[in-house]
C-alpha cells in the first residue's frame, strides 16, 4: 500500500530577487517560503517530517492538549530506532521505560494517522537510513526530524535539518516551521583520496580543521571533485556529520549518481512523475555567480585515515599524528582540553598507534549502510578479530540487514568473530542494552565521542569503518594502510 506522499511542494523560480544567481540552499528555501515578512522569521513549508520514539511523545501530548489533529499525517513517517534491542528484537523489550516509549509511539501513530515502520516491519531502521533507502528522501525537498543528524538527507540535495520537540509539535500542527534563513558556506574538497581513506575521514578531517563550532549558523554545501566522485552512501556519511561542526545542515547538489540511486525505490516517483521530478531536480545546483557567505577549500590528497582522541568530534587527527599538546591550545580553552584528555586517559603528544582497544562498533546513521558493511566484510574476509576485542556490527535497517545476509556477509562476519546484530541506533548512544562499559575504549564508526555517549565513562574513538575493522583485527589502533599495502605487495 503506497500511503506515503513523496511529492515536493516546491515550485521553482529561476532567479533571485535581484536577478543574481542563487545558491542551492537559496533555491530550495525560496521555493518553500509560505510567507516572508520583514522582522519575522520565514514560514517555511516542510515536505517530509520523520519522527522516532524519543523526541515525539511530548509533541503528541502537546497536540492532544491543544485539541489539534496532525495537519498532514501523510507527510510524516515514523520508525522505532533509538531504544530498540539489537538482539531478539521481536520479543517484548525487556527494559520497561524503553518498551513504554516504543509502545507510546505505536499508540500515537495510530491515533494521529501516521505510517509507522516499527519493530518487525521490513522497512524498520534508523530514521536517517530508511528515508533514503525507501526513496522518501528526494532532491529539492524540505525535511525535518527531531534529531540532529537529519542533515544526512542533504546528500540528495534536500534542505534537511534537526529540530527540537517543540518544533516537532509545530510541524505536526502546521506542516511549517518558523525559520530564519541560514547563512551559506561552501566546502570544496578537490583531488583524489589516498588508499584506505574514505568519506568518514574527509568529514572528520574537515571538523578537525574548523572545530566543533566552525559551522554554526551555516548551511553547508559540499562540492568539488572529491565529493562528486563519492557514492550516495558516502555522501550521506559526509552530510550526516555537518551538525558536528555546529552547522544547521549540509547538502550536495544532486547529479547522475543521485538520480541513479533514487530510481526504482519504494516511494520514489515513477513514470511521468519521474520525468517531471527529474526535470526539476536538474535545476538544483548553485549558480556560478551565486554568493556564499563563506567558502573553504580542502585538498583530498592531504587527508589520512582519521581518529579522534578527545571528547568532541573536532578533536581528531591523522592516525599517524601525535595528540596536540595542551599548552598549544588557546589559553582559555586549556582547561576544557585537559579535561577531555583526562577523560580519555591520553597524554599530550602521545601517539595512538598500538593503543589497545576493547570494543569495536560498526553502525549508526553515519556508517551502517550496505556499502559500509561490504567494505568491512571485504577487509575482514579471511581474517579474525583479536580475542581481546568485542566487535559489533549493527546494520542501519532491516533492508540493510537482509541485503547483507543475501550477499553472504553474515557468514564472513561470523567467521571473523564479528557479531552481526539487528538494526537500531544501538551503541551510538547506548539507550538500549548496547553500552560500552566504564573506562573501556571503543573504536566507533558513529558520530559522537562525547563523554558517556556510548555508556557512562565509556571512551570513544571515532573512525571510519575500515579503521574500526583494522582495530578489531589487531586489537589496537592501527593504520589500515599498512594492511592495504601488504595485500597489494
Amino acid at each position: 500500500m503506497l500511503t506515503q506522499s513523496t511529492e515536493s511542494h516546491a515550485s521553482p523560480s529561476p532567479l533571485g530577487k535581484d536577478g543574481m544567481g542563487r545558491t542551492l540552499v537559496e533555491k530550495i528555501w525560496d521555493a518553500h517560503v509560505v510567507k516572508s515578512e520583514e522582522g519575522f522569521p520565514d514560514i517555511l513549508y516542510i515536505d517530509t517530517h520523520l519522527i522516532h520514539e524519543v523526541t515525539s511523545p511530548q509533541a503528541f501530548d502537546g497536540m492532544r492538549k491543544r485539541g489539534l489533529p496532525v495537519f498532514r499525517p501523510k507527510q510524516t513517517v515514523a520508525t522505532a530506532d533509538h531504544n530498540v534491542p539489537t538482539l531478539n528484537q521481536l520479543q517484548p523489550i525487556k527494559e520497561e521505560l524503553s518498551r513504554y516509549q516504543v509502545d507510546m509511539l505505536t499508540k500515537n501513530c495510530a491515533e494521529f494517522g501516521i505510517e509507522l515502520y516499527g519493530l518487525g516491519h521490513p522497512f524498520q531502521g534508523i530514521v536517517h537510513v530508511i528515508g533514503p533507502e525507501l526513496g522518501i528522501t528526494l532532491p529539492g525537498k524540505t525535511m525535518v526530524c527531531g534529531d540532529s543528524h537529519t542533515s544526512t538527507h542533504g546528500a540528495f540535495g534536500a534542505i534537511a535539518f534537526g529540530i527540537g520537540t517543540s518544533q516537532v509539535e509545530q510541524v505536526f500542527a502546521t506542516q511549517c516551521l518558523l525559520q530564519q534563513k541560514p547563512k551559506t558556506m561552501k566546502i570544496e574538497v578537490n583531488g583524489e583520496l589516498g588508499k584506505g581513506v574514505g568519506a568518514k575521514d574527509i568529514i572528520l578531517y574537515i571538523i578537525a580543521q574548523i572545530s566543533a563550532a566552525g559551522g554554526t549558523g551555516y548551511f553547508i554545501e559540499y562540492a568539488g571533485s572529491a565529493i562528486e566522485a563519492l557514492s550516495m552512501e558516502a555522501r550521506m556519511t559526509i552530510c550526516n556529520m555537518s551538525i558536528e561542526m555546529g552547522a544547521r545542515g549540509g547538502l550536495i547538489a544532486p547529479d547522475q549518481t543521485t538520480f541513479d540511486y533514487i530510481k526504482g525505490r519504494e516511494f520514489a516517483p515513477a513514470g511521468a512523475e519521474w520525468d517531471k521530478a527529474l526535470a526539476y531536480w536538474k535545476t538544483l545546483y548553485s549558480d556560478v555567480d551565486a554568493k556564499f557567505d563563506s567558502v573553504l577549500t580542502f585538498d583530498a590528497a592531504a587527508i589520512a585515515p582519521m581518529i579522534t582522541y578527545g571528547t568532541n568530534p573536532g578533536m581528531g587527527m591523522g592516525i599517524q599524528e601525535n595528540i596536540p599538546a595542551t599548552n598549544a591550545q588557546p589559553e582559555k580553552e586549556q582547561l576544557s582540553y585537559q579535561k577531555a584528555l583526562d577523560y580519555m586517559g591520553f597524554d599530550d603528544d602521545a601517539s595512538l598507534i598500538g593503543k589497545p582497544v576493547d570494543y569495536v562498533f560498526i553502525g549508526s546513521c553515519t556508517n551502517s549502510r550496505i556499502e559500509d558493511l561490504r567494505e568491512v566484510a571485504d577487509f575482514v574476509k579471511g581474517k579474525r578479530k583479536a580475542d581481546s576485542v568485542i566487535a559489533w556490527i549493527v546494520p542501519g535497517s532491516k533492508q540493510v540487514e537482509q541485503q547483507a545476509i543475501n550477499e553472504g556477509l553474515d557468514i564472513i562476519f561470523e567467521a571473523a568473530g564479528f557479531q552481526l546484530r539487528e538494526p537500531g541506533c544501538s551503541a551510538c548512544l547506548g539507550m538500549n542494552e548496547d553500552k560500552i562499559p566504564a573506562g573501556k575504549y571503543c573504536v566507533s564508526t558513529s558520530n559522537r565521542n562525547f563523554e558517556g555517549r556510548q555508556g557512562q565513562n565509556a571512551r570513544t574513538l571515532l573512525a571510519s569503518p575500515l579503521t574500526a575493522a583494522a582495530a578489531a583485527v589487531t586489537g589496537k589502533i592501527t593504520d589500515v594502510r599498512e594492511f592495504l599495502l601488504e595485500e597489494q605487495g
Partner: protein
Amino acid sequence: MILDTRYLILFEMKKFTKLTSAVVPLNIENIDTDQIIPARFLKATTREGFGENLFCDWRYDADRQPKPDFVLNDKTYSGKILLAGKNFGCGSSREHAAWAIQDAGFDAVVSSFFADIFKGNALNNGLLPVQVSDEFLFKMFEAVAKDHNTQITIDLENQTIKIEGQVLPSGEDLGGAESFEINAYKKSCLINGYDDIDFILAQKELVEEFEKS
C-alpha cells in the same frame, strides 16, 4: 514590534522580562546536550522531572552520591542563571536539555556562544539564552569566582546584561554591562508568552494556498 494578538490562541509559554539573580558558573567549553542530560534519561514521555538528572554524570558518582567538587553541589552558589563556557548546547537536538535546565530552576543561560538547535529549543520554552562577548563572559566568571553571591541582571526589554556593581575593599570594580542580541520576533514571544504554533496557525490559509500552488 508587537504581534497582532487578535489571531492568537495564546498557548501559555513561560514569560521572561527582567531578572536579577546570583549565578551558577560552569566554566567548561563545548558542553554538549549529552552532558546536560544523558541519553539514558530520555525515556520519559513528559516534559517534567528532568532537572534532577541535569549534568548527572558530572554531578553524581556511580552510587549517585553528589560529587562535592561539582558546582551544582556547591551550596555557596545558587540562582536562576547558568553561566557556561563557549559553544554551549552542541550535539544532540534533544529538547530535554532545555527542559532539564529549566526544571532545575534556571530561567536563563549565559555563554559567549550557543549551538543553534539548543538556542532555538531554549527560546521555544521561555528559557533565555544570552550571548555575550568572550571578554564579558570572562569578566562574569571572574566576578563570580571572587564573590559567589554576585548578582547579575538580565533585562530582556532593553537587551542588556549587567554585573551588579561590586566594589571590593581593594577598590577593584567587578561591575560592568553589555548589550545582547536577540531576534525581535523571539523577544516578543518571550515577553508575551506566545509560541510559534500560535503564530503559524493564525496564518493557516496561507499554508493551504501554498500547498495548492
